[in-house]
């Protein structure tokens, strides 16, 4: 996408708003136990914050914030966090994805609660990385030039 001259208002506003979007996204992820929200929504909002910076400041500047080559390893790492949580439960004697057997703390119910938090972090990382990756691919790979 060819860009015209840099508009100072657009760049200033997007740089100011983006950290607040990220903060609200982290609130949505970690407060998903008590309020609507969770991994998918929070991850998509994180991706929206990154894409806002990418749209307004251009590709070269935003590489300092989030490199394009990090996207695929981070997405795989998110799925591996999810899978590994289930696998740890398998190692400690339960079924696959049976979080009650993971010895975090105390009782079975609290173990399940912390297990839900772990897999939501995995979902959020994977969704964030994949959304940014799709944006980069659409912008970069033009078949003509």
């Amino acid at each position, binding site marked *: 996408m060819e860009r015209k001259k840099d508009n100072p208002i657009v760049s200033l506003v997007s740089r100011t708003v983006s950290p607040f979007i990220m903060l609200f996204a982290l609130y949505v992820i970690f407060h998903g136990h008590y309020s609507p929200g969770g991994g998918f929504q929070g991850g998509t909002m994180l991706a929206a914050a990154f894409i806002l910076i990418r749209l307004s400041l251009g590709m070269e500047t935003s590489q300092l914030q989030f490199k394009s080559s990090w996207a*695929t390893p981070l997405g795989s790492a998110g799925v591996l966090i999810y899978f590994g949580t289930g696998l740890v439960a398998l190692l400690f004697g339960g079924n696959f994805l049976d979080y009650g057997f993971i010895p975090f703390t105390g009782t079975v119910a609290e173990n*399940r609660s912390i297990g*839900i938090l772990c897999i*939501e972090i995995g979902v959020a990382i994977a969704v964030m990385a994949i959304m940014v990756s*799709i944006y980069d*691919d659409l912008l970069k790979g033009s078949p003509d030039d």
Partner: protein
Amino acid sequence: MKIVNYLIMIIFSALMIYASLSLPDRGDAYAVLNKEKSLAQTQNAASYYIHNAKKDAETENMVTVILADYRGYDTLGEETVILTAGLICFLLLRIEKNKNGKKKR
């Protein structure tokens, strides 16, 4: 040809409205799905979740418990679908140029 399109649209929407008239009301306590026991006198899944979600996992939000705990396999599959979509976009769309101007995948 356009008249046929509009006719098909009107007939289809009339059919959908007629079909939706026999659905139960939203939040109807006496509908079959919302009762405590199903028709075969076994416990419904929804009432089981409502009674036991807080007890099983110490989490207030019932939707999170259903998505991540009771239906963990589904969320794992959804995760894998998203990762596969991203990887396919990566393989199909990303074409980078070499230093001598040649395209490479």
